[in-house]
């Protein structure tokens, strides 16, 4: 019996989703997560199976992100008909300052509403608030939000400060909920609560499930919930809509840029499908438990064969098994020849017929979806980098290892120095970089981005579905055509770290081992 099956069978017992609680358990507890590992994927898998995954301390660490920043702060503030309140000092929300501009670059012709407004406030906690408490301030901020915008929902995002000083958010909310029309949704995303940023996803979905999702008025048999990440673009949405509409299905994209009503109606859908499995996990299980909405977690629609399988899974739960095979056939006729061309292009780049080596920094969800896609393109990964790892995706990792062979895996949440070390030591033909990491992209070799961003509406930037598989393939081919920018800057500017760091072989040099 597979691990997935074992966990599925006992899931309720192992990790109950308990909406009577104020928040979810941390990923550390729920799924034995870690943000530090380097070694064979097979060993990580064994450790996971045997409950031996460790989440050790580092003596050198970099600011990779907390539960609030950046996964939630820049995202919840894009929900329409709502107001987000950061119950925090003023700096915790500054990352949300891009909110008004984010989706404005998407042309109205591509389905972006012409008129919309996004709003957030901060309680702007001061020293006095820290000493005397900030319950009244939060209350007044809620009233201010209600008065200004009459929103359908008010999200309250908590912070390290409110956590440490022990603010009773639920107490404040219960005092004031009856006086206003908006539904108040507290989300416990205190930065200090967890080492694993994915806890933030779960905390958000917990709030959505507990406070926003309504009892279904009627089941909508043609509606599919799809949780989209900030790293998936408008074109990815259009591609998924295109494919599902051919099956007679509609998509409910949440939470980015969704309306509150879309969140309320999650319970009415026929299915919850993943784009990123670890992102969707808590929501999917919650909707299943509370409203019997079925779900699947793997695969995401990345690459041709994963898109085939994703569509088949969707079809299975929506009674479209016959239609889906027809759709896949049609789509293959259009797209597979283009993928073959890309493979040929990439083959031409080989030296001594050795497969091109690519190194990518990925989320856990992308780890299990993108490696098979690289394999499809005839590319090889000497190592994969994942922001974190937990036992929610054990079966999927096993499947990947079976399919493409064992590989090294580095688990870290944006630890730029560790990544710089293995980029230097493995010297891949192409580095996929996550663009937040100082000078890591400066090298005398090929570099490109691992993912595009939500406001990017150009078909060139797509990555999902068939159109995305082809677009991203072409994009990768282009990455090999000019390396001037990274090369000249690697030559002309100082390196981030001292030479010894690049020369020594252990990216986890600063790990506190066995202490």
């Amino acid at each position: 019996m597979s691990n997935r099956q074992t966990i599925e069978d006992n899931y309720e017992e192992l990790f109950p989703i308990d909406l009577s609680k104020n928040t979810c358990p941390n990923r550390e507890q729920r799924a034995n997560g870690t943000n530090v590992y380097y070694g064979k994927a097979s060993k990580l898998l064994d450790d996971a199976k045997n409950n031996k995954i460790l989440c050790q301390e580092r003596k050198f660490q970099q600011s990779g992100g907390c539960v609030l920043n950046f996964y939630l702060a820049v995202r919840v503030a894009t929900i329409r008909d709502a107001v987000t309140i950061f119950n925090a000092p003023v700096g915790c929300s500054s990352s949300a300052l891009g909110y008004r501009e984010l989706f404005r670059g998407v042309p109205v012709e591509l389905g972006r509403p012409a008129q919309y407004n996004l709003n957030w406030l901060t309680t702007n906690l001061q020293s006095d608030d820290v000493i005397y408490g900030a319950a009244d301030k939060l209350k007044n901020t809620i009233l201010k939000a209600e008065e200004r915008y009459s929103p359908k929902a008010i999200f309250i995002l908590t912070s390290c400060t409110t956590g440490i000083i022990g603010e009773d958010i639920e107490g404040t909310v219960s005092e004031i909920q009856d006086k206003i029309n908006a539904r108040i949704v507290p989300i416990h995303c205190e930065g200090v609560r967890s080492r694993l940023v994915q806890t933030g996803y779960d905390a958000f979905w917990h709030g959505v499930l507990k406070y926003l999702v309504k009892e279904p008025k009627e089941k909508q048999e043609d509606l599919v919930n799809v949780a989209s990440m900030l790293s998936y673009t408008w074109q990815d949405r259009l591609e998924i809509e295109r494919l599902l509409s051919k099956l007679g299905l509609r998509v409910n994209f949440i939470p980015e840029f969704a309306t509150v009503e879309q969140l309320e109606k999650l319970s009415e859908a026929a299915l919850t499908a993943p784009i990123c499995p670890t992102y969707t996990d808590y929501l999917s299980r919650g909707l299943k438990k509370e409203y019997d909405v079925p779900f699947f977690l793997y695969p995401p629609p990345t690459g041709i064969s994963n898109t085939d399988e994703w569509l088949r899974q969707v079809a299975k739960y929506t009674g479209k098994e016959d239609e889906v095979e027809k759709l896949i056939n049609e789509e293959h006729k259009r797209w597979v020849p283009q993928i073959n061309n890309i493979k040929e292009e990439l083959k031409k780049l080989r030296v001594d017929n050795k497969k091109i080596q690519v190194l990518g920094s990925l989320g856990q969800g992308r780890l299990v979806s993108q490696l098979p896609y690289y394999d499809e393109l005839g590319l090889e990964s000497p190592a994969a980098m994942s922001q974190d790892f937990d036992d929610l995706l054990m079966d999927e990792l096993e499947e990947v290892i079976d399919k493409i062979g064992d590989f090294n895996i580095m688990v870290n949440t944006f630890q730029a120095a560790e990544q710089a070390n293995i980029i230097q030591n493995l010297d891949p033909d192409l580095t996929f970089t996550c663009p937040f990491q100082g000078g890591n992209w400066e090298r005398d070799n090929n570099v490109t981005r691992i993912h595009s961003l939500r406001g990017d509406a150009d078909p060139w930037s797509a990555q999902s579905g068939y159109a995305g598989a082809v677009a991203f393939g072409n994009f990768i081919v282009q990455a090999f055509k000019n390396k001037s920018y990274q090369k000249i800057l690697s030559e002309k500017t100082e390196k981030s770290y001292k030479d010894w760091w690049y020369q020594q072989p252990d990216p986890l040099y600063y790990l506190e081992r066995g202490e």
Partner: protein
Amino acid sequence: MTSKNEKVNQENILSNDQIQINSYENDSVEAPRYSCALSGVYGTTLGIRGGVPILHSGAGCGIGQLFGTLYAGGQSAGGNEGGTSTPCSCLVEEHVIFGGEEKLRNLIQSTIEIFNGSLFVVISGCVPSLIGDDVDSIVDEFRDKASIIHVNAPGFEGNSFEGYEQFWDAIVKQLLTPKEKQPKLVNIFGIVPYNHVFWKGELLNIKNILKKIGVDANIIFTEKDGLENIKKIPSAEYNIVLSQWQGHEIAERLKNKFQIPYIKFPSVPVGAKQTSEFLRKVGEKLNISSDKIESLIEEEEDRTYRFMEYPADAVILVRPHSYFAVVADSGTAIGITKFLTNELGYLPDIIQITDNPPDKYRESIVKEIIENIETVVRPDIIFEADTYNIRENLKDRPFLFLLSSSLEAPTATEDFGALHISVSFPVYNRSILVHNYSGYDGGLQLFEDVISTFVGPL
């Protein structure tokens, strides 16, 4: 006509209902145009070449400010030491319970070992303040190993503009020692990296223009060997402060500790008039021959004003004597308002000051604008940090141009019927490297930016 020198009655200024001084914003606020104290120290450190911030904070404070301060400062990533490259103690619950001191000690040690950098700035955020870590003692352990300072900057104790002041306070107290005076050397203060979005180009322009009158400007930021620049601060003959409030405290401190007098100028000088005035003031204080100053001014003005003739047909045929609105930090607001009014002949409709200056500086900011605009028009001047209020204040007004942050960029036309130019924090919609409005050429660049919003075939 009101002329520049006509005295405006002070009582009028303060009792005028067009002026809303308000008080320091410590209530809840919608999308304010600044971040926290930690962010201000962080951005200031990253502005120094060789400066390595070490965050003693939760794990999100660096990446959060990457999005909310660095990208927001004209799409400037933080380089080798910014964003997710920033060393951080990444405090979580167990540190809250048991203390974060050991974690910080390891972090400082390893950062000094691994980073190419010369000045290490330990920045304490909210968490260590709340749990009572003794950060000073830990930093003390490393003072003989590297140039290192500690800045205590919990987010709840100030905003990012104030963080700039906290950074300099720590530098003066912990790093600077008396130096032999160097004639004609001046330090430049009042320009806050990232938060003043044109900081890089402004500093370079100021340096270049002062060089022409034989003054060596220590601009500290953007140049190689930032630590050396900092160490030579006490050698200066004068400090020059380019703000009605930023940098005043540091200038006072340097005056008291190293007997360096300072020259105040209300903003970075924008365009020919302000720049000529700036040069005369500096020349007078530093005993530079007025012939030298005047001949430079004549040469620069001659070129500048000839250039300002080129777009005149477009200005006069399409958008002459137009009302404009400014929403910006105090320095940017002062410089731009004076230039557009006094040189382009535009009409200041409403000026909203967004950097939340301490109360004691607010009247002087208002006066600097009111007393120095050459028009009968009296603009509304409002200190406002709250984006909802800012937008309400902009409704139903005659302005045709809105100079503000990029928050208003996508909808300025539909919301206010105005053409938009991004000039103040946050600016996400333009990449700002050398572009800026300071000096003679800077005024021309502002001219270009304004005229380019509306020109087409005539």
